């Protein structure tokens, strides 16, 4: 990891590096991590899709929730179930399941997010009848009180279903504990992002995404411990003045550290992101009082919405422009998974607003399977060069 920590002082570097190494080992082999967690603790592990799944309920039941985020291997078995015009997150995830890569999971749960995840849930239920599966049908409209009542009731239904399935009680006390644990984790991640905005050369963009990715593989308390250790070390890194080009990442699920790594090679730094595998997954914490299930519902409805959700008041264009301004960024790299309708529909107006705001941006289409990055490299190189010229004259 030395290459990814170019500016840190020797002393801190060692500790930070050991944490980051541990994290990258987990994120490079998430299934292995979950298997060993099960062996170590004797607990159950559940796979879940999308950051909209109310994980707190699983956590309160003692379960390790592991986000299923596609697979790096090329699709073979899923071709018999899923057309080529469906996103690779859906295709590779189902493919991995059909290849029995998820046999260690004790259940797989889905939130309602988009058309494709919705139908995947049904295909999954049919093809893995022996596996415990359940869908929490979240509302699409997030900012009306009716949705909060509905979701509170829907999460309660899921909780009861889990209690019955696991033959245990998920008490309000346990839910409260889990909410605390999740809030602590989200706060730690937000601290990491704040630190990075302030001193982006302290940690690479790739490492930050790795840290967030690890939060989706681990029990949150274990993850928080790691993030806090990392933060302690990073806070000691002196702020380096640099002329590096500052970039904001926008998009959906990006699990390609290699793309992000390209920036460092080109003398650019990532200063913030609005990604589903980044800040959108953890920003906004549960309100501090009220009935636990309702608090959970409120958090998922009030978080920065995924484009698959409908909101009256949230203006993604303004949100992204504000993020660029607040992080003092020079440009936006939009990483969009091919065949993702919700993002593709937002893109034209978002791109237009960035242009009107004089913020350079570039669109990179991605797939879950690692593709050749050579073409991306050339385009990004030209983009970064343009930003450098604009910045330094």
């Amino acid at each position, binding site marked *: 990891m030395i290459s990814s920590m170019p500016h840190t002082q020797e002393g801190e570097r060692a500790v930070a590096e050991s944490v980051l190494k541990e994290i990258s080992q987990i994120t490079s082999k998430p299934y292995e991590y979950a298997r060993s967690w099960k062996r170590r603790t004797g607990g159950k592990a559940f796979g879940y899709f999308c950051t909209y799944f109310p994980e707190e309920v699983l956590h309160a039941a003692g379960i390790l929730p592991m986000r299923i985020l596609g697979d790096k291997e090329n699709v073979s078995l899923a071709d*018999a*179930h*899923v*057309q080529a*015009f*469906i996103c690779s997150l*859906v295709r590779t995830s189902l493919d991995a399941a059909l290849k029995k890569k998820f046999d260690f999971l004790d259940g797989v749960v889905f939130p*309602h997010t*988009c*058309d*494709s995840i*919705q*139908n*995947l*849930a*049904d*295909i999954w*239920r*049919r*093809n893995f009848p022996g596996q415990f599966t359940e*869908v929490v*049908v*979240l*509302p*699409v*409209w997030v900012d*009306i009180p*009716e*949705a909060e*009542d*509905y979701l509170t*009731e*829907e999460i309660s*239904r899921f909780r009861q279903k889990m209690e019955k399935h696991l033959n245990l009680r998920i008490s309000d006390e346990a839910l409260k504990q889990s909410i605390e644990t999740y809030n602590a984790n989200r706060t730690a991640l937000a601290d990491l992002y704040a630190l990075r905005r302030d001193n982006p050369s302290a940690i690479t963009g790739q490492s930050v995404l790795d840290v967030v990715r690890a939060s989706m593989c681990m029990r949150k308390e274990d993850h928080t411990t790691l993030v806090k250790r990392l933060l302690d070390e990073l806070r000691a890194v002196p702020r380096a003045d640099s002329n590096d080009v500052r970039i904001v990442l926008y998009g959906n699920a990006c699990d390609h550290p290699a793309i992000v790594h390209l920036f460092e090679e080109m003398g650019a730094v990532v200063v913030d992101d609005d990604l589903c595998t980044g800040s959108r997954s953890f920003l906004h914490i549960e309100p501090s009082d009220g009935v636990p299930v309702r608090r959970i519902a409120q958090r998922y409805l009030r978080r920065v919405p995924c*484009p*698959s959700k*409908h909101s009256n008041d949230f203006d993604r264009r303004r949100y992204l422009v504000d993020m660029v301004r607040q992080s003092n960024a020079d440009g936006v790299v939009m990483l969009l998974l*091919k*065949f993702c*309708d*919700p993002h*593709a*529909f*937002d*893109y*034209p*107006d978002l*791109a*237009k607003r960035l242009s009107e705001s004089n913020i350079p941006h570039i669109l990179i289409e991605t797939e879950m399977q690692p593709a050749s990055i050579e073409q991306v490299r050339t385009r990004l190189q030209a983009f970064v060069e343009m930003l450098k010229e604009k910045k330094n004259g």
Partner: protein
Amino acid sequence: METQRPPKIQATSRAKDIMSAYYLEAKNAAENGRKTAWVNGGGLVELLVAMDVMPVYPENHAAMCGAYKMGAELCEIAEGMGYSRDLCSYARCDIGSAVTGKSPIMGLPKPDFLLCCNNTCGMVTKWYEALARLFNVPLVYIDTPFIHDDLTENALTYTKRQIFRAIEQMESLLGTRFEMDRLCEVVTHAAKATRLWGDILAMCQHIPSPMTAFDGFILMAPIVTLRGMPEIVDFYELLKAELEERMTQGIAAIPGERYRILWDNLPVWFKLRDLSERFLKLKTCIAASTYVSGWASYELDGKEPIDAIARAYSCAFINRSIEYRAEMLRHLVEDYSIDGIIFHSNRSCRPYSLGQYDMKEMLWERARVPSVLVEADMNDERTFAEGPVLTRIEAFIETLEPKRAVGAA
């Protein structure tokens, strides 16, 4: 050998007149002091009719653009604005038309507001959000949670509460009061038309069938766009009488009807006529389709109209699980004596298409009915590979074994 042609369904020209009059009325709505709302195919149009708002259907309009082979041209305009070629071709078509005024009817009249219900797909939410930004008009939105198993009381309550919210929002937009009695009336008309449409489709169970689903794709336009208007009830009574007469006289939609097929997913609008011709030659009747049946499956009741429309729109078949849809297909197979299913794997419609491979297996397991998947698109002819698609369909039909003695052959 010359292909024997059936006599035309006379009501088709009446449907065309109704649609022309409707579009003319829509175009003149603003001049006549009437507000116009754009509404999606799964939208609760009864609310608009009850409040005397002119409903305009971009989906119907896009289908018309597709049938006139303007799909690709209009899609390219939207693509030039940054809309991905992978997005729904209805949406791209209408956006292309909205910004240029191009279409067979020179574009749709501008909306005063939008009404969108997500019971058809999540895509439509995004499309209507984009329209709201494009026209800078309010969006009245109704979220009907997807039904993986059964409709829950919780989801029903949520939908009903949103209908009341939508009514309030429209009252304030329009400056008029909503009358529940008026809605009862409208829902009663809609229920009558819906039942008639169901009766008409059920006549295709007859062997030979007096009508094909391809005729249905054209004849459904009034039930889609003018549901809740009394004229529509008259129109469908007329159509029903004509089909009854055809049955009495033994007139087949496909003379010498040999095979009976169920079509899943939307039509391929720009190839509708060519495919009809091909099926006529193959003596193959598309006797049923999930798409036309969709508008017959609303169970409406004028007595408790809010409850009725909340249930009906929540339970739209496309808002239900693959298991539910497989059973729907199985019933159609049995009721319509279907020999085989053509699944149109529609690049433009992910929720309708994703799961078809599994449904294909389910239908074989449950009803021993063979099926084939063909890749196409409802409106974007650039993605259509005509040769391979036709070869695939013909090869499939050759393998079929009709389950019954052949009628008029």
